[in-house]
């Protein structure tokens, strides 16, 4: 369980231009939950998630993992890094080894896994992101395509066997198929391994049908938090943070405005279609929408 309590962070606090990136953010993440974090560019999402595995220290407030304050003096940093895997924004930029194998093994090696355990960890991690060990392990990471690099980088974190996985815009800059593939694999991971997942994204569409809860960040504060259905109903607040509800929700809202009895909290195109079918059937043969 992760508890974030009154977290504030100021970059360069004593420079002429300090930057208050977070103020008084509080929330709790239960084990096994899938959390989506949404907000405009510059709202503080990256700053927030970097606190959760102690890459940044709070200016004030606390982060508790399994009841322990990870910023307490003497708290073993490696424990946090082992428990909580953080995939950075554009993680492909941190590949550096000569081969995919070495790069994926970098994390586990730092955590003290021995040489004989590494091949197993690496091949498991690569297969979790859908790359074949035999085809990829001896290639240079720099010779891969952008999407493959991204997957190798994610594998580098998965190989450390974290219990909580935080991903900072894992689908940014990928094509729709690559995006779907990553999201799908994450869901499978969650089911198979019971991972807790926190995912930062700009796309409400990709979070809505998957996550248990959404956190909406605005200018460093937690504006809204709730289930996707609760959030999607508050389209005005979403508009305020520069997020538009997905087009299918907008469609349902327009229909409701015109007096049609539809639910407006659909989370995916499929649900929307089902809702529309239901309404059309209910209207009988002559019912035109």
């Amino acid at each position, binding site marked *: 369980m992760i508890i974030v309590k009154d977290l504030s962070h100021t970059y360069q606090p004593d420079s002429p231009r300090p930057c208050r990136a977070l103020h008084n953010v509080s929330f709790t993440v239960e084990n096994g939950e899938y959390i989506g974090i949404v907000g405009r560019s510059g709202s503080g999402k990256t700053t927030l998630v970097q606190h959760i595995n102690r890459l940044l220290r709070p200016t004030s407030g606390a982060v508790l993992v399994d009841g322990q304050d990870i910023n307490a003096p003497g708290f073993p940093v490696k424990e946090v890094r082992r428990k909580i895997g953080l995939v950075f924004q554009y993680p492909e930029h941190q590949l550096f080894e000569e081969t995919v194998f070495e790069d994926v093994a970098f994390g586990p090696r*730092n955590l003290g896994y021995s040489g004989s355990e590494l091949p197993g960890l690496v091949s498991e991690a690569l297969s979790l992101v859908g790359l074949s060990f035999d085809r990829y392990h001896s290639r240079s990471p720099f010779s891969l395509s952008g999407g493959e690099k991204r997957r190798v980088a994610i594998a580098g974190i998965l190989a450390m066997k974290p219990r909580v996985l935080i991903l900072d815009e894992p689908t940014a800059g990928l094509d729709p198929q690559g995006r779907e593939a990553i999201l799908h694999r994450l869901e499978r991971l969650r089911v198979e391994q019971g991972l807790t997942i926190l995912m930062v994204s700009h796309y409400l569409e990709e979070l809505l049908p998957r996550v248990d809860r959404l956190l909406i960040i605005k200018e460093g504060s937690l504006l809204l938090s709730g289930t996707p259905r609760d959030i999607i109903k508050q389209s005005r607040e979403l508009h305020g943070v520069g997020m538009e509800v997905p087009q299918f929700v907008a469609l349902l809202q327009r229909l409701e405005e015109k007096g049609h009895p539809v639910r407006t909290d659909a989370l995916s195109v499929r649900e929307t279609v089902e809702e529309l079918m239901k309404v059309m059937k209910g209207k009988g043969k002559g019912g035109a929408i």
Partner: protein
Amino acid sequence: MELSKQILIGQYIPLDSWIHSLDARVKIALVLVLSVIIFFVDTGKGLGLCFAFLLLGVLLSRIPFFYFVRGMRVIAFLVLTTALLNLFLVKGETVWSWQFLTISKEGVQISLLMSSRLLFLFGVTSLLTLTTSPIALTDGTERVLFPLTLVGFPAHELALMMTIALRFVPTLLLEAEKITKAQMARGADFAPGGLAQKAKSLVPLLVPLFVSAFHRADELATAMEARCYRGGKNRTRMKELRSDYNDLVAVLLVLGLVCLLQVV
């Protein structure tokens, strides 16, 4: 670990002050003059005067004093080494000795003098880069160096290289910070170990950093090509540098300092 906190050079702070408003050419020329003058100053009073002048500059620039001083830490090592070497190696009238170490009166003087000069040099240069936008800075440099183009000196190219270097210092620092964090998230440890261990632990930082620097350079070159950049010939400027009476005041102030230094 926030590297960008620690290094001042190339970090322009846009404030609204008298020093900020001065013409970049004038500021550069004055910094050059001051850098030469400091090597002719060899008395305590003279040094005091110079530092008082620098302090005046910092105050006029509205840059928080402690922020400025913290930036000086970068060269603390250099200053200390200079001071220690001069302290022990200069021979003269011995004032203190212990085993093979001796300190002479001349040593003390020279070591104080040298480290003060270094500090002053770094101080005025920092003041210049803190109060002048990189664009104005290189524009100014190009103008100041212009006479040398007559003998084939590539002033424009030099200025361009300088702009790019200055422009990318903060970017690369931020990048380094990001990569460091990303590798720390993978359990990397950048702190402990001997020299060899330390050098080895830097590989995960340096390789991605170089890769991204080369990418950036490539992109920049393409972007410049795409905008038909073809060197400095016949280029005009959107913002012409202009001098006004404020710049005259600045020149007079420096002249005043020079005169005073003659007197004391």
